[in-house]
């Protein structure tokens, strides 16, 4: 284990090489490019000896690792934003074919308008693809999630997406423990595929399923995903045994911060949790009893763990770095559906914030905690549905007449 000051993309590249995949496919897109560039550097310096494929598009970057995975290889690729959209079609296939590839996504907003900055609109739109989705709060966790992703993918035979916030984590240098090859081998045993494409034993993968089979064929990965929480928790616990770093006080699925005596909770994914924790410290100085809840996974959605940790709060403010146009924030939608049938449920409010890299200050989040604290006395049944969603950072003054208030 070497501790170094290292950029997020380089750190993830080293973690990937530590996992020693047989095949890495590379197609550049900001802010992911540093990951595959880092792997290329490590390959050039003789640290990575697998197949490094320079591909002509994200569609084929995904397709090539799907083919390699079908042939029994441990595989890795990485992308962002619109690149993830171009990978979308083959990724659904990967999940249906139960191929355990690992995909790092440097989260970035989707065009149009074109933007390179961070939010979660790219991966939220892939929530139905059948991939497990892990989200990291800092560079160290992005490194560790990369290794956990390989472990979980190969155990469950499902593709895993490991997310790190673009620029916020990819291009920031932090002190990171970068795994050495030895402990990685201890944590990640050699990949032994259950079935592979093999000329001496011909078989067809990705064949046609008629209506008599399709329902069951779709039910299987759904059910495996619903139960995937156990495997993620086990992998996270074993990771702690080998590396000494632990994640998630709810068994590796959900992290919490100062939630024990909290009346209200802020819920968010990824690096924004760091800002939220600072905001909680500051808000508590003003007597606002607030805590942070950070799901480490979005698929499978950790509903049970969230119901448990949110049991004592009156209101939840979802800090939402994505929007599903015409409906609302995907994270709060999922949370509401998990809480809806509870007899005594907290109020859920949706704060759309930090889209496409708009800066989120500690003051912004303290303001949200403040607003939520006032709402906490209102029963969810009395709250006007059209007031649930707010855009605290919206600049009303530049809006066109079409949507002005």
């Amino acid at each position: 284990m070497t501790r170094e000051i290292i950029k997020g993309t380089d750190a993830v590249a080293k973690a990937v090489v530590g996992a020693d995949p047989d095949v890495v496919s590379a197609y550049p897109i900001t802010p992911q490019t540093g990951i595959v560039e880092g792997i290329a550097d490590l390959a050039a310096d003789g640290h990575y000896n697998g197949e490094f494929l320079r591909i002509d598009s994200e569609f084929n970057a995904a397709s090539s690792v799907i083919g390699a995975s079908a042939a029994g290889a441990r595989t890795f690729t990485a992308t962002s934003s619109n690149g993830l959209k171009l990978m979308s079609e083959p990724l659904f296939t990967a999940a249906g074919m139960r191929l355990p590839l690992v995909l790092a996504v440097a989260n970035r907003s989707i065009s149009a308008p074109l933007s390179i900055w961070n939010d979660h609109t790219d991966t939220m739109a892939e929530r139905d693809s059948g991939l497990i989705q892990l989200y990291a709060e800092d560079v160290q966790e992005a490194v560790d999630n990369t290794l956990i992703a390989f472990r979980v993918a190969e155990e469950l035979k499902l593709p895993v997406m490991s997310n790190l916030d673009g620029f916020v984590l990819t291009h920031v240098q932090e002190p990171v423990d970068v795994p050495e090859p030895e402990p990685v081998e201890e944590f990640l045993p050699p990949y032994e595929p259950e079935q592979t494409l093999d000329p001496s034993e011909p078989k067809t993968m990705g064949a046609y399923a008629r209506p008599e089979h399709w329902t069951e064929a779709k039910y299987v990965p759904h059910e495996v995903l619903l139960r995937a929480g156990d495997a993620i928790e086990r992998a996270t616990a074993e990771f702690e045994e080998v590396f000494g770093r632990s994640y998630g006080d709810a068994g590796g699925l959900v992290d919490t911060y100062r939630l024990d005596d909290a009346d209200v909770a802020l819920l968010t994914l990824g690096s924004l949790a760091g800002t939220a924790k600072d905001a909680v410290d500051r808000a508590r100085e003003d007597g606002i009893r607030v805590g942070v809840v950070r799901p480490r996974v979005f698929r499978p959605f950790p509903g049970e763990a969230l119901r448990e940790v949110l049991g004592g709060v009156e209101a939840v403010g979802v800090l939402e770095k994505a929007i599903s146009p015409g409906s609302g924030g995907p994270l709060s939608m999922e949370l509401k559906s998990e809480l809806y049938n509870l007899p005594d449920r907290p109020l859920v409010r949706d704060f759309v914030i930090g889209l496409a890299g708009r800066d989120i200050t500690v003051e912004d989040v303290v303001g949200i905690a403040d607003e939520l604290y006032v709402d906490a006395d209102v029963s969810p049944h009395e709250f006007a549905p059209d007031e649930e969603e707010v855009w605290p950072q919206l600049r009303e003054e530049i809006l066109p007449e079409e949507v002005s208030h």
Partner: protein
Amino acid sequence: MSADEQLTLGGVVEPRTSLANETGSWRSQRPVFDAETCIGCGLCERFCPDGVAQEVEGGAYDVDLTYCKGCGICAGQCPVDAIEMVPEVK
């Protein structure tokens, strides 16, 4: 995959030809051939898009219902109206 086949990991199957693709369950109607009227001209065989209208014993024609999708083209082409399309009731 035939309907009674067990699901495998990721839906993997052994290599097959299209013979394994039994489409008979797709039909909403089936052709019924009248061997008395049939003159054995073979137009139904020529025009059947699935190649399942075939000569049977005695020079008349019939379809293999394992693959017939009930499109009715054979009935439309028969010059002597020996083929009647009958609704499939499930």
